[in-house]
């Protein structure tokens, strides 16, 4: 599969959005439990953004607001978007499971959401994308064309 140009600033804004939303939901829930609704909303945002990039809220915020105003500078890199989309989708799936668990087992639901935030933070801070590594492993196993 051919390389294309991927703006890594859009990915960073996306990861920042994930970390910030989960943290707001987690800390906010200490004072106001219903704010946990942010977690299913984030799951929807990530899953929608995976299948329809024009609906990726954080990326669109970058392309429509942050980039044109010069708040975040673009960082185009020769790359493949598929592993990043896969990682985002995986985050969305885990957040969806977390959302389902939030009512019957809130500890597990919150813990799963925190793990997604931790992985997004690792990607943001150290450029280590766990979802992309899983994508590589699936490619190695011949399950996807990586």
């Amino acid at each position: 599969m051919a390389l294309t140009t991927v703006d890594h600033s859009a990915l960073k804004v996306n990861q920042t959005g994930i970390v910030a939303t989960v943290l707001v939901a987690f800390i906010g829930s200490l004072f106001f439990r219903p704010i946990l609704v942010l977690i299913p909303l984030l799951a929807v945002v990530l899953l929608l953004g995976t299948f329809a990039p024009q609906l990726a809220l954080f990326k669109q915020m970058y392309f429509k607001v942050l980039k044109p105003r010069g708040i975040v500078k673009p960082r185009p890199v020769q790359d493949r978007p598929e592993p990043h989309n896969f990682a985002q989708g995986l985050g969305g799936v885990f957040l969806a499971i977390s959302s389902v668990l939030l009512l019957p087992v809130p500890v597990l639901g919150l813990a799963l959401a925190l793990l997604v935030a931790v992985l997004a933070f690792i990607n943001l801070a150290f450029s280590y994308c766990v979802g992309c590594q899983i994508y590589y492993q699936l490619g190695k196993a011949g399950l996807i064309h990586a």
Partner: protein
Amino acid sequence: MNTQLWALAVAGFVVLVAAGLEAVRAARARRLAAGAVAAPASEPYILYFTGESCTICRTHQEPALAKLEGVRVDKVDAIAERELAERFHVYTLPTTVVMGPDGRALHVNYGYAPATKLDRQLAEARNGSTLEHAATA
């Protein structure tokens, strides 16, 4: 408050267990790959395992490899050259292997390896070969 604390504890525990398992897996892979053989060369060189899906390879590892002056770097597509990747137990990308002149793996780095680390490993490889040559002379 209790729910949040327990959730934090569970997430922290999972992160610690995952980090521990990763460390064990890397150590095991490193042990199995040590001494694996590829083509010999006149100087130590680097086998660099990468793939199209590896972003950190392009953003971090390749600039680090470019800093190493006069070092041969053999780029290997880990998906296309599966047999070679299996021989060095490549389970993550990037993986860099510092090869001795005799074609034996001397250092295996799973994940991003900065230029300073590779430089040090190459220096060790050169000194090792110098010592070997001195011993046989």
